[in-house]
């Protein structure tokens, strides 16, 4: 029996096919799904903020795009995945309200997406697909078996990237 493992806000999980990982109701947060196609080991990180260096209270590495992705890759390597085979897909980073106050928090969704891309690039992990931005929430499910990243949104058709 395959299991669908739930990832909370500011959290990450690693799994092996046939299991899958999911996170519900991504808003401005970003869900970064990484997979090693040979071992079929996959993982999903749900990050909230772009940069751990910009905030004093940064002990929770899962919360930030820069530290969260590195931690996800480390945990996947521990599980037996190889970095040079890893590929990524990203979703989320919406702007839920048409304005958001505080200049440094404006467009936090976009900044989360940018920071995720930057970190993945630094780690040498290519991004195969993305569904980011716009103004709606997303529920995502990632299947390490096929690499399918299923995206559901309210009032929209299910998408697979």
């Amino acid at each position: 029996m395959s299991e669908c493992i739930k990832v909370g806000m500011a959290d990450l999980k690693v799994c092996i096919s046939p299991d899958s990982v999911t996170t519900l109701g991504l808003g401005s947060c970003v869900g970064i799904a990484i997979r090693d196609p040979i071992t079929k080991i996959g993982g999903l990180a749900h990050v909230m903020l772009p940069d751990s260096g910009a905030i004093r209270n940064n002990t929770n590495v899962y919360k930030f795009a820069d530290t969260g992705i590195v931690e996800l890759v480390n945990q996947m390597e521990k599980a037996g995945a190889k970095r040079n085979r890893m590929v990524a897909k990203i979703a989320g980073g919406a702007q839920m309200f048409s304005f958001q106050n505080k200049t440094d928090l404006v467009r936090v969704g976009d900044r989360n997406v940018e920071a995720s891309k930057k970190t993945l690039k630094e780690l040498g992990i290519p991004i195969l697909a993305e569904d980011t931005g716009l103004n709606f929430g997303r529920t995502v499910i990632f299947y390490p078996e096929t690499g399918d990243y299923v995206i559901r949104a309210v009032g929209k058709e299910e998408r697979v990237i």
Partner: protein
Amino acid sequence: MDDLSLENMSTQYYDVLKEIGNIGAGNATTALAQMLQCKVDMKVPQVKLLDFGEVGALMGGEEQIMAGIYLCVEGDITGSIMFLLKKDAAKHLVAKLMGMELPGDDLDEIGTSALKEIGNIITGAYLNSLSTLTNLKIYPSVPDLTIDMAGAILSVPAIEFGTLGDKILLIQTQFTDDCELDGFFILVPDLESYGKILGALGIM
């Protein structure tokens, strides 16, 4: 003030927030009753300090469809405030305000606009009592409304709280007119603003 965080908050501070929540929600209920021209009862609000993950569950799951009204606060304190209620409850309120049943599953343009106004009045009443209580100037911005999954809407205040710590402060209010409506207030003051609120109340 630098080491102030939600995690190591004293019970006294907690009680103050609870009381502000109580008075604010009371005012909001009165405003709601006036607007709907009917009797609206309110239960004692609950102030909760929750982990990010627990908030969605409290509202009926991360995928629960909610209406979220969000506005910024400026003046002596800065930050933002959000008022959330379930989509059914939102529809019920709008139908009542407009004096007619709403066709279809979604709110139309007029319904959305009415809901924004409801949110404006409720959050306005809440902020008003906070302002009166603390003698601080608080100016709310024009509200914005979104209807989406609870998790997605909550990511906005969670991210703001996320810059301070790993928890979120939530005030849950239950209104009752002819059916029970769960409303949630989330007030996100900046770190300095917490100090100002407490200072104004003579706590610090």
